């Protein structure tokens, strides 16, 4: 275990805590249950956080939650827009996660070939 890496943790955690304060345009929810973790949800979350930081997107917040009940298509990420529109992305990996950040979160274009299910609009 590298102590230097652990020291960086404090800095990153502070940013992350500041990021979850709400009122952002996009809310990204990563499913982090047993099957999610086993299929790489943690790495997907890290890639998204890094990519969001790299691109300087400050209208995005990233949250972690338990199982979504979609165990067979993990890792699953839900993108909620301020207007109430929800998109579920499934079977992700780090490359696909980068694409979602670049397309959906930065340019506002949904990545249709990675999305699953029908569009849902909540009131």
């Amino acid at each position, binding site marked *: 275990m590298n102590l230097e890496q652990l020291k960086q943790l404090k800095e*990153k955690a502070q940013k992350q805590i500041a990021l979850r304060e709400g009122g952002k345009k996009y809310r990204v929810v990563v499913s*982090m249950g047993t099957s999610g973790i086993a299929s790489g949800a943690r790495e997907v979350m890290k890639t998204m956080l890094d990519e969001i930081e790299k691109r300087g997107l400050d209208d995005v917040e990233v949250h972690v939650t338990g*199982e979504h009940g979609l165990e067979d298509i993990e890792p699953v990420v839900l993108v909620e827009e301020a207007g109430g529109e929800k998109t579920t992305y499934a079977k992700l990996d780090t490359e696909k996660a980068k694409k979602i950040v670049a397309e959906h979160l930065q340019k506002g274009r949904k990545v249709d070939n990675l999305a699953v299910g029908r569009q849902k609009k909540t009131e």
Partner: protein
Amino acid sequence: MFEELSQHILDIAMNSISANAKKVQISILESRRHDRLVLRVRDDGCGMDAAMLKRVLAQRWSSKNKRRKPVGLGLAFLRQTSEMCGGHFHVRSAPGRGTSVTASMRLSHIDRPPLGDLNTTILALCATDRKMDVQLNYRSDEQRFFFDSQEPAKKGEVNL
């Protein structure tokens, strides 16, 4: 199965969130001198009674998501890993008294998974919806490290 011990830690600590814990304490002791690695995840959540404790340790039983397909392998996975690596696995819990999960293993055991990306594990726990205090206490023969997610807020370094 998980490839890294830090994935086990994340998985176990996610249970603390379901148990409505306000605080989760993760401690890691890595001692080359004693050839031992000990992980402990302790929370102040709702806890479990003896009957439930017995069920969660069996594979394929989960308290979550009854309608869907419960996986219920988290604790079973960690038990398998620690027992496979010459260690012990222990859960202590009582209703209203929180839960403490301890897993030990032989540090030099050939099958022992690496600790892995502990930072991302802690980051993920800091990103949950519930504002849970996450503490990490890491100790080895030479060094100590302590992290507390409440610490930055206390010092006023983060604009909340």
